[in-house]
């Protein structure tokens, strides 16, 4: 199996006022293509920073980062990072982040604005994805006409529209009741079975249990594996 994501001795530090914060310290992580990995840690542990670096929204201060075998230079241009994000990574957020004024269909299509794909193809694809997440017939509903669970399904369809290898889900069930949360987790599990690399960021052990492997972060460092170790 090929490597989807690899971090070598990645550190991230920043200054807030006079305070120097080491958010991540010498992180070594390797995630194989097709894995379902949970990154767990309490708030302030650095797991969000780690997610931002894996999602190419933030740059490490030190160390090496590889996405699908490609080295990400620390000084890579913003526009190149944006292109990599659009091609490789699908984001699912705790707060869903759908655009409230447009339909489910248009929300799913939104990321294609920044890709060059034929119009007919992408509309067909968006319809297909909405059906896959169980929202056939809701294409023209606006987010205000959908339940939380349904909204998150639209968001998952949106994360898949550009056919990325990696799905990065940041507390995807955090704003959902447990029933909807379970449904969303089952959907992510299903996606993983179809070959997507799914990375889950959570502080909830029950959610992390859906993953094949859990990486625990505490005080900016990776904890020794406790269970489900590779």
């Amino acid at each position: 199996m090929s490597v989807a994501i690899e971090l070598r001795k990645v550190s991230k530090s920043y200054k807030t006022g006079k305070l120097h914060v080491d958010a991540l310290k010498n992180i070594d992580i390797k995630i194989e293509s097709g894995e379902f990995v949970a990154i767990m840690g309490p708030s302030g542990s650095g797991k969000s920073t780690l997610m931002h670096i894996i999602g190419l929204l933030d740059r490490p201060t030190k160390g090496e980062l590889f996405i699908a075998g490609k080295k990400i230079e620390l000084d890579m241009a913003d526009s190149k990072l944006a292109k990599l994000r659009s091609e490789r990574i699908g984001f699912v957020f705790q707060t869903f982040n759908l655009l409230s004024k447009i339909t489910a269909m248009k929300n799913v299509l939104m990321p294609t604005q920044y890709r060059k794909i034929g119009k007919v193809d992408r509309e067909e694809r968006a319809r297909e994805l909405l059906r896959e997440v169980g929202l056939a017939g809701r294409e023209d509903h606006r987010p205000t006409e959908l339940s939380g669970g349904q909204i998150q399904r639209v968001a998952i369809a949106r994360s898949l529209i550009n056919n990325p290898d990696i799905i990065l889900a940041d507390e995807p069930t955090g704003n959902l009741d447990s029933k909807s949360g379970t449904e969303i987790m089952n959907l992510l599990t299903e996606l993983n079975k179809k070959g997507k690399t799914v990375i889950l960021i959570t502080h909830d052990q029950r959610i992390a249990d859906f993953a094949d492997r859990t990486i625990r972060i505490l005080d900016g460092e990776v904890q020794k594996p406790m269970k489900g170790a590779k």
Partner: protein
Amino acid sequence: MESVKTALLSIWSNKVRSVLTVLGIVIGVASVTILVSLGQGLKDEVSTLIRGFGSNLMFVTAGKIDTKSGSGMGGSNPANFIAGDILTLNDVDAIKGVSGVTEVAPMALVAGTVTSDGKPVNATVTGTYPNFEKALEILKVKDGKMFESITAGDVVVIGPQIKKDVFGDVDAVGKTISINKTPFTIVGVFGEVEASSIFGNEFSSLAVVPFETGTALNKGKVTINRIVVKAANDAKVSSVKEAVKKAILKSHAGEENFSVLTQDDILGLFDQFLSLATTLVSAIAAISLVVGGIGIMNIMLVTVTERTKEIGLRKAVGATKLAIATQFLVEAVFVTLIGGLIGLLISFGVGAVVAAKTPLTPSITPNVILVALGVSTVIGIIFGLWPALRAAQKDPIEALRYE
């Protein structure tokens, strides 16, 4: 194309705000377009009138008008323009002697009150020579005929408006009308001056009497305020103008207290006046556009802040800084462009009303439309740029956390 759709959606979902925001642009564009179209309409009128006069017609008028420097009165005493004692019959005779001149007719403003059956009539009484009609090509006697000498006595040729006001559809020739309570026999009626609807009015209410009769009405004083000079059709107008000027200078002992104006000079003077007026209103409109632009900038900054989370999301799914900047810039340009279009529509509306209610026909040329839309676009770019750049510079992580 997507950014255009997104922009339109955003403008549409904030209708009231968008309308208020573009008001400055609307007012700016509308005021400039209306003024320019009125000016163009007026210019068309003047050009038509002047073509009607024929290019070989000249006016000699009291007072010195500088047609070259653009300063108009050129430092001469403004009182000269209304003074009746600067141009004399000597000047008329001197002009007659200039080669290339075919007709010379002085116009003497007569202080006369016109009445019909004791009721006042709106009329301008002018004493002139019988060849007045020949000199002023556009004014033709329709009914009756022009008087035949400057001593023809108490006879008058009236303009079409006077005829209509006093006699209606009844034939006026042979009837009488009173000037300073003396009855005058109407010998002729001028036809409508079709060449010009606005300036024709001046001729419509003209009452022309023989020159000597006019002098008598003015209690023996000769008060020539204008001399109509017609050059031969084949003569070179500019050289005849210089010769006429020299002849009057000679009879005025070298004092240049008069002007000889060809039709080109008059058009030039009119252009000077028009461009001054256009400059003034454009300056006011520019202020309105700048204020409007600042309004756009303000509202775009609000929009960018409101949509911080959307910006973060778009960046996360692959939007580059350029894509984000373009989205907000397109939106700003659309707002101003819509403002410009509304402004244009208003000026078309005002133009239609003006055309229906007045003799003037405002003309909105394709150039005016292009400039109006061009200026709106540029305002959108200038004032939309900073908010767009601010949107583009937002850090996606911070933006996604924004509540």
